[in-house]
């Protein structure tokens, strides 16, 4: 049992490291440029050799671009947005959760009502409205995902702070004259980190899916940047002719997200066995 758990953690970590390596090294290891078009060589099947004998391992897309190269480059957007959006969401959520839990009163009511309200709007619809506000683009998308993804952190952090506030050791620290800043930094924050890290790892996968969904809908990453969501959207129109165009980027995304979930679950078991399901 324990072996299976650590195996899951390791397998997840290995796939994540591989995905990051591919994303970073894409310009060096991709056989073709991600935007290199060859309209006369479009929709060729996987393992296809072109006239000059060059191999296209995953075939080509409707514009004749090499699918393997595009899938490698697509990892960049996915991982970059997954990671940065989670950091942004986590930071907002932790700060607001700390404020709500520690200060209480009207601040707490205001923040928690905001959480309730945002929870009532389905995330995709909220993101769609925000696209109207921030426009389409990499930075805009990170902002949208970050600004809509913090709710869970705020709830958890507030809960932890409320329970920690009553702990004898925190009261003792306050009794010997520790100020609010010191109390938060030395006594409350350390208790907050574990659940936050666990939620954050699991949210990376959800953010990657959210980004690709919005891109698929045509309101995420602009089509000039190779991304898995846009590639799947490209392939959708050619389902009968060239199904591989939609299949491979989707597989890449699913495998990466699965690895993140494996890693997150494994991390949770290691960091906080009480949260184990």
């Amino acid at each position: 049992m324990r072996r299976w758990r650590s195996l899951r953690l390791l397998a997840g970590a290995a796939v994540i490291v591989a995905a990051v390596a591919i994303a970073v090294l894409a310009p060096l290891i991709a056989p073709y440029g991600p935007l290199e078009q060859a309209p006369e060589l479009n929709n060729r099947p996987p393992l296809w050799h072109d006239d000059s004998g060059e191999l296209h391992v995953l075939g080509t897309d409707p514009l004749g671009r090499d699918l393997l190269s595009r899938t490698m480059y697509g990892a960049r957007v996915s991982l970059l947005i997954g990671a940065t959006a989670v950091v942004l969401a986590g930071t907002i959520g932790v700060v607001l959760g700390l404020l709500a839990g520690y200060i209480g009163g009207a601040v707490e009511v205001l923040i928690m009502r905001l959480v309730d309200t945002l929870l009532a709007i389905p995330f995709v619809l909220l993101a769609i409205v925000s696209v109207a506000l921030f426009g389409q683009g990499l930075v805009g998308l990170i902002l949208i995902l970050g600004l809509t993804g913090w709710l869970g952190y705020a709830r958890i952090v507030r809960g932890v702070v409320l329970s920690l506030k009553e702990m004898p050791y925190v009261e003792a620290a306050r009794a010997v004259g520790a100020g609010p800043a010191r109390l938060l930094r030395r006594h409350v924050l350390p208790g907050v980190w574990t659940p936050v890290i666990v939620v954050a790892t699991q949210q990376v996968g959800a953010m990657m899916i959210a980004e690709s969904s919005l891109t698929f809908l045509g309101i995420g990453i602009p089509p000039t940047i190779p991304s898995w969501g846009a590639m799947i959207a490209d392939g959708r129109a050619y389902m009968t002719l060239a199904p591989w165009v939609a299949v491979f980027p989707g597989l890449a995304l699913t495998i990466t997200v699965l690895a993140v979930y494996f890693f997150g679950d494994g991390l949770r078991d290691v960091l906080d066995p009480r949260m184990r399901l």
Partner: protein
Amino acid sequence: MATYVVRRLLQAVVVLWGVSLIVFFLLRLAPSDPITLLLAETASPQQIAEAQHELGFDRPVYVQYLLFMERAIQGDLGRSLFYKEPALGVILRALPNTLFLGGIAFVLSVAVALPVGILSALRRDSVWDYLGVGLALIGQATPPYWLGIMLILVFSVNLRVLPTSGSFGPEYVVLPAVTLAAVLMPIVTRLVRSGMLEVLHEDYVRTARAKGLRERVVVGQHALRNMLIPLITVLGLQLSSLLGGAVIIEQVFAWPGVGRVAVNAISSRDYPIVQASILVVSGAFVLMNLLVDVLYAWLDPRIRVSG
């Protein structure tokens, strides 16, 4: 009970008011001006000013909001710039399709998740458990829109047994409903499994076993019932991910629901439609959660007192 219901009702009103506030100001802050999209490029400044006046865009934002609220309370959410008819009507016409799709997906996912989750919990750390948890994880990691496309590839393109998209008969709902069910199924499976594991450790389950009751009675009568009550509330909260998933999946299968109308409206900058769709969907979500909470309080008297 009455006090509890009234308090929950007030909370629901506050949440809906908050939704209206957020949606209204987000859309007013948007840099792109819907007026210029409405009129021909040759429109004179005077025509633009007239149109702005007609739509109330020349007044201060808070006045616009108050006017918007006054009309919204009377059921008027503005006219669609694209359909040239009341936005609320357009949304309410699409809503039954979304609720139908969501309802079928909900029943389907619970029907699968309940037995799988219970089996996983009862046979903890067995092959069944790993299979159940593993499938749930894979389900959670698969982007719903991609799963939809893959189902189209298998069942419509290759096997030719189901239609690809649209809504022209009962067979058209199968693929979108299965795809949407796959969004909720992993979450519910995990919830059922952890809920079941929790109640199986309760004293009353041990007592039931000690009394010599058969395992079927212990699980079916004592454990399951106690697990189902908290599950109802969590399921209510998950309706949001169900509705959110529907927005994307409707687009994949050209299903004529609210999500499809809303996504199309954003590309044509039809803000009254976007506004109305969010208010209606959030309203539906808040209402369903209100019903769930009232049902919960009715089933479990402890909530009425302490909640």
